[in-house]
Structures are given as C-alpha cells and as structure tokens.
C-alpha cells in the first residue's frame, strides 16, 4: 500500500507485525525471568528464560527470534527489569551471568536455523522430534559455552572452576525445559503461527 502525504515512510504491514511479535516475545522472556524454581545445588534459582529463548527460535524463526532476544538485552540494559531477579542495567551485561545473556540471540538464531532449515519458516509442528530436540540441545550448548566463557572472563576463573561454579548446577533443569518445549510445540496449545 502506498503512502503519500508528506514524506511519511510507513512501516509495511508485515514489518509492523513482526516488530510487534519480536517485542512481545522479548517481554515474555523477561516475564519468564520471574518464573523461578529454587535450585537445590546452587544459590541462584533456575528460571524459565532459557525456555523463552528456545521458543523464540522455534516459533519466530532465526531472524525474528534472534531479533527478539536482541531487543530483550537492549531493553534490559536500558533499565527494563527483565533480567533474573528483576534486575536491569548495562552492568548486568558485563556481570557474572553476562555470558549467558549474550548467548541468547545466537542460541535462538541457531535453534531457528535448525528447526526451519534456513530462514524461511515452516510449521514447527511438522518438524520431527529428533530435529526439535537436537535444535534445543544445540541451543543449550551455545548458551553454556558462552556462559562458561563469560564466567572465566568476568570472574577470572579457570574453565573447570567456572563450569563447576556457575553451570553444572543448572544443566539438569535444562532437560526439563527441553521436555516442556517439545510438549508445548507438539500440543495443540500453539496454533500454526508462521
């Protein structure tokens, strides 16, 4: 549809709704930061952020899923209380969990590429179980690689120390999130979105 008055360059319909979805998904990942379960072996609780990242890649695809995670980080840096424990600010992006946070856009994009086989979207329900689980496992590997490197740099730890101190305690919970992710995508809870 053309726009004439003055020099107003209207944002196209598709771009407007993709932006709306990416922003709402970013807010949803933020809301999932508040859904936490005590972690028996670590003082930091397990949160659902990572499940939000999985689903961003699966449901929005690599481009918009990655963009949603990018918006999440930027909004948090500028003060939206979207990080774990309701925290916010640029400092968190260079804090102990910085590696995890910076990994989210990459993890969502990687998951999106695997699930959709590229950048054009397919119905996630039609994707095989192995591929779905494989994509999320890849996501977990990306997230923990960044996360451990982040701890090494920020906290000045060796790789084993960083893994034991900041990663090992969370990994069992990721299996539950992958299971929940598969359940959600496969159930009729999510209507075909793409």
């Amino acid at each position: 549809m053309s726009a004439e008055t003055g020099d107003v360059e209207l944002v196209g319909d598709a771009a407007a709704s993709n932006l709306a979805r990416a922003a709402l998904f970013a807010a949803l990942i933020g809301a999932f930061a508040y859904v936490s379960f005590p972690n028996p072996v670590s003082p930091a609780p397990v949160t659902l952020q990572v499940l939000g990242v999985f689903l961003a890649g699966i449901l929005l695809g690599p481009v918009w899923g990655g963009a949603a995670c990018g918006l999440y980080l930027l909004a948090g840096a500028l003060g939206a209380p979207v990080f774990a424990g309701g925290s916010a600010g640029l400092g968190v992006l260079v804090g102990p969990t910085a590696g995890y946070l910076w990994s989210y856009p990459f993890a969502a994009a990687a998951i999106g590429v695997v699930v959709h086989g590229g950048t054009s979207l397919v119905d996630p329900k039609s994707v095989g179980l192995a591929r779905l689980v494989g994509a999320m496992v890849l996501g977990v590997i990306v997230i923990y690689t960044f996360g451990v490197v982040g701890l090494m740099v920020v906290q000045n730890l060796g790789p084993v120390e960083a893994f034991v101190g900041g990663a090992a305690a969370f990994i069992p919970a990721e299996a539950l999130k992958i299971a929940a992710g598969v359940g959600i995508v496969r159930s009729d809870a999510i209507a075909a979105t793409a």
Partner: protein
Amino acid sequence: MLSYEPGDSFVHRLDPRAKLAVQVGFALAAFAHTTPRGLVILTALAGCVLAAARLSPIAALAEARYALPFLLAGPAIAAFTLGPPWIALSQAVAPALASYRVLLVLAVSVVYVRTTRVRDSRAAIQRLVPGRPGRFLGVGVALVFRFLPVLLADLSRTRAAMRARLGSERGLIERMGIVTSAGIQRAFGRADRLGVALRARCFAWNPTLPALRFTRHDLPALGLAAALVGWAFV
C-alpha cells in the same frame, strides 16, 4: 524490581547519552585496571556517581542481589584445591578482585536505571543508531517496557486459574507447560492487536525524534567518560 524513580539530582538532569558514555568508560576502566590501586580509584569514583544521584550504596547493592551469590562463589571455588591444604587463599585473590570490580560496575549501572526515563533512553538509541535499525530498536525497547507488566499479570492470572480448579494437584513439568503456553498464546494475541494499533497511528520509519540536547551541564560527564576510556587503554 529496579526501575526509574523521578528526582532532580545532578545525574537525573544529564543527557542519557552522557550517562551511557560514563557507564561504558567505567566498565572499560574497571576491566583494564583490576588491581588494588585501580579499584581504589574506581571505588572513589563510584561513590561520587552515587552521591551525584543521591542514591545510597546500600540501595545500589540491594539492586545487584541476584549477582551476589556468583560474586561470592567465584573466589570461594578458586580458593578450593583438590588435596591438602584444601584451601589456598592466594588463588582467590584475583577472582576476588574481579568480583569486586563487577560490583562497582553494577552500582554505576543501577544509577543509570534509577535516574533515566524510558523515553530518554529510547531517544538516545535512536540518535546513536541511525535509520531503520535505530527505529526498530527504539520502538522495540519502548514496547518491552510497556508490555512486561502486562505479560507478568497474564502469567499470574493463569496461575490463579490453575489454582481455582485445583491444578496444584499436577506435576511440575505439566504446570510449567500450562503457564508457558498460556503466556505464549496471550503474547501472540496481544502482538496481533498491537500490530493493527501501530498501523492505525501511521507507524513510520522516519518520525520526529524525541528531543535531546547536550547542555553545559553534560560537559563534566563527557569529560569523565573520555578520561575513563583513555585510562582504560594506557
């Protein structure tokens, strides 16, 4: 929940770009000078920043509470050795300094969040990142601020709905699935309606940008930022 609080301190009146520059400079300097001497200087500086924002150090630390366990665990793990003498304090020194510098950086960023309106942050983004990417980021950030409380309320209403019909009798994974999928369904519904609302108000790539102007007031902050960046690279 950490958020903006209105006020009229020196820092409140600064241009958001100047505040962002100070934060970046401070973080660079802190990572470049993680030495006892560097950290003493940075501690004094952080104290000045907190004072200029009229924020108490205790309040700033309270906002960094999620990071505290990690900050304490780092040095503790580093000190532990497999085999006698089990505890080697010398190994914990570098990680302890690292933890402390992170604490300082967190405190300075708490100041930014407490003193800067969403609208100003958004304006800063759109000035710093030109063109369509800046527009995408600016509007996107505003929408995250706008919808976070809405989606949180949606999640808590779904949990109430489960409780009302005795969903507490179900297992953890099942409850997690119910809350998550309800959250996604509602977020998508809201996104679709929002997309229409944006178009109704002529959502454009080239809008009038929110007003932002450096003043003389910002000079000390910009000078400090430049000095910090310079120091980080010597």
